[in-house]
């Protein structure tokens, strides 16, 4: 043996497991308003620091402070609040619908609603989105009919995806919402291709893609950054760091060693790290990145630092792998509460109005739920003809599939 120590293998572990008392007081959180806002035309090499701080606008009192304040009008803020609340109430109902056996599966976005909703509002209505399964807020903010979402979740006779997809794997070209795959990461690099196509055509529509902290480990993440950088594709590459990937904490994806925003540096792409629970910060950073893209300055990586306040999906119980009170201990608060506080601080919103809105949306979701259930729920629905199972594999049904359809007798 040599005169060196024995090597030893390191396996990262989260700080807290069930039974521990979570304490995030040493989490390095920049104060609201302190991070500089460079000109959108800045060279990426001059803003490496922005990948290591946290862009925040809303302070503890609910005031919007600092250079990143997007100075939004009250209407936009209220639209945002409404869409976030609607997303949350919708999630809640659908989660319960799954528990009631009305469908096979559901995934909430609790605690992360600001990501999809603020980004949807900061982007143009016809910009293209390549989301993951946790950006239902995009559809809601873009006024996709809730009943269509439910029809999809129930795989019922009005399901626009004809009963083919797992619940929440929506698709709506009309709403600029790319078909969700189920395979993690794959859409991230596809978005770069869409953006390249838009640039090739001299179009003015840009593109945005989302990926989870855990999924950044897929090769597709690297392809997205490489191709995006090389061809300066007009695309926003959003990493939603909600701290968890099913049961694995973000350190298993490398998050303990550097920030996900800093991945951008090696590709010469600007990387911004943003308080993902701060509606205004998310909006402002998205706008900054979108402006860059529109000016042919290429992609931006945005790390949206947030927290997955619920289980991964209806299939897991998070208290098996993290403390039950961890969501409550998370120091960056709740995006809905923070925006509400801001509106109240601005004097344009009140507890009563809030309560009324919650009631209204709850009633609305309930009513839509009834409407959707009229079309049936999973296994209790007049589905489209079984014939449709053989369609859309190809543009036209080829002979061998026609034969198989006949074999099935439909």
């Amino acid at each position: 043996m040599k005169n060196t120590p024995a090597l030893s293998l390191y396996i990262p572990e989260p700080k807290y497991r069930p039974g521990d008392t979570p304490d995030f007081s040493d989490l390095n959180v920049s104060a609201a308003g302190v991070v500089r806002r460079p000109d959108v035309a800045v060279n990426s090499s001059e803003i490496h620091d922005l990948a290591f701080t946290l862009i925040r606008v809303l302070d503890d009192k609910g005031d919007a402070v600092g250079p990143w304040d997007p100075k939004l009008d009250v209407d936009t803020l209220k639209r945002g609040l409404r869409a976030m609340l609607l997303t949350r109430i919708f999630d809640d109902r659908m989660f319960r619908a799954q528990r009631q056996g009305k469908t096979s599966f559901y995934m909430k976005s609790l605690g992360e609603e600001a990501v999809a909703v603020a980004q949807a509002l900061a982007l143009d209505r016809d910009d293209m989105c390549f989301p993951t399964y946790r950006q239902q807020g995009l559809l809601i903010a873009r006024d996709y009919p809730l009943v269509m979402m439910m029809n999809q979740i129930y795989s019922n006779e009005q399901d626009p995806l004809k009963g083919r997809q797992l619940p929440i794997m929506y698709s709506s070209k009309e709403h600029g919402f790319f078909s969700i795959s189920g395979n993690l990461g794959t859409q991230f690099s596809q978005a770069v291709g869409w953006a390249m196509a838009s640039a090739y055509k001299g179009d003015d529509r840009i593109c945005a893609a989302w990926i989870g902290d855990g999924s950044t480990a897929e090769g597709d993440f690297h392809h997205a950054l490489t191709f995006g950088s090389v061809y300066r594709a007009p695309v926003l590459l959003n990493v939603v760091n909600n701290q968890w990937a099913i049961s694995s904490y973000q350190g298993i994806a490398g998050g303990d060693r550097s920030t996900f925003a800093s991945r951008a540096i090696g590709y010469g792409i600007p990387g911004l790290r943003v308080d993902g629970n701060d509606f205004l910060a998310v909006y402002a950073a998205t706008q900054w990145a979108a402006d860059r893209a529109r000016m042919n300055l290429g992609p931006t990586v945005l790390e949206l630092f947030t927290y997955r306040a619920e289980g991964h999906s209806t299939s897991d119980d998070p208290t098996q792998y993290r403390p039950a009170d961890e969501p409550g201990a998370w120091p960056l608060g709740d995006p809905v509460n923070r925006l509400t506080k801001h509106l109240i601080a601005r004097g344009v919103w009140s507890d009563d109005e809030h309560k009324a809105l919650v009631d209204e949306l709850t009633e609305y979701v309930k009513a839509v739920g009834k409407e959707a259930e009229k079309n049936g729920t999973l296994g209790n629905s007049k589905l489209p003809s079984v014939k449709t199972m053989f369609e859309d594999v190809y543009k036209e049904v080829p002979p061998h599939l026609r034969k198989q359809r006949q074999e099935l007798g439909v």
Partner: protein
Amino acid sequence: MPMNMIQALNSAMDVMLDRDPNVLVFGEDVGFFGGVFRATEGLQKKYGLKRCFDTPIGEGGIVAVAIGMGAYGLRPCVEIQFADYIYPAFDQLVSEAARLRYRSAGDFWAPLTVRTPYGGGIFGGQTHSQSPEALFTHVAGLKTVIPSNPYDAKGLLIASIEEDDPVIFLEPKRIYNGPFDGHHNKPVSPWANFPESNVPEGYYTVPLGKAARVREGKDVTVLAYGTMVHVAKAAADDAKIDAEILDLRTLLPLDIDAIVESVKKTGRCVIVHEATRTSGFGAELSALVQENCFYHLEAPIERVTGWDTPYPHAFEWDYFPGPKRTAAAMRKVMEG
């Protein structure tokens, strides 16, 4: 001790972690959590962080790292969370694990086992239901194993971990808890009610490359594996046909002798699998049977398979090659 398939697989890894310090178990969520199907439950606690741990979500990286470990001398047993997610690792499996021994003329090899749940019937839709086994059987250098019950699952997994060649170990997730026979409206009886749940706690192996005759019969040979073994049994009962059913257990190497012996006896053959039909493993089986038993065949070989479409969420039972279609095929070859 009665075990379901998950418990049997867990026990196999437990036994091997205990016997051989070179065995490591890792994959997405397999460490503290014990895997989304709980197959590695308790192993991290028992053997420590370094023997059983979580990985980044990069299947290509998981397999690459396992190959490097194998080249060093370890025996990694990795989990790919669903077989539908094995494709990002396809290059590492096909171009690397499978070829390493050959291209280095025996200088290096990759003794890894890739466990992965496959198959449908759980309302998983197109990305939690696939059966990619045929792809691996086309790749020289890989072995492909599929158990159909707890006893075999444990014995085959131990044998796979001990193999010096890379093994793709596909677990029919629909029968983790009990032998689902395709009658999806009936409840599934748990494994504890079946003799195959009688799994020794300690070390034993079921050798790769040996089929099991799970039903003796004289009229028609049914070739099946995984969940379809149970569907085939139900179909034979439903159709009241004296079928001989072979559970292949290993697709590659294949127990061709057992197949040929049976088909020569019955003169008829039905092949059942859940994967899409075209270029599925049924094609290879059909080709082999006709090459080896041509003069004994009294009717065309029938394939009962998933359709050549993705696995649709709500049409699951129209897609699944259940006992009805299997029985119909048996009747058809009997008439042929």
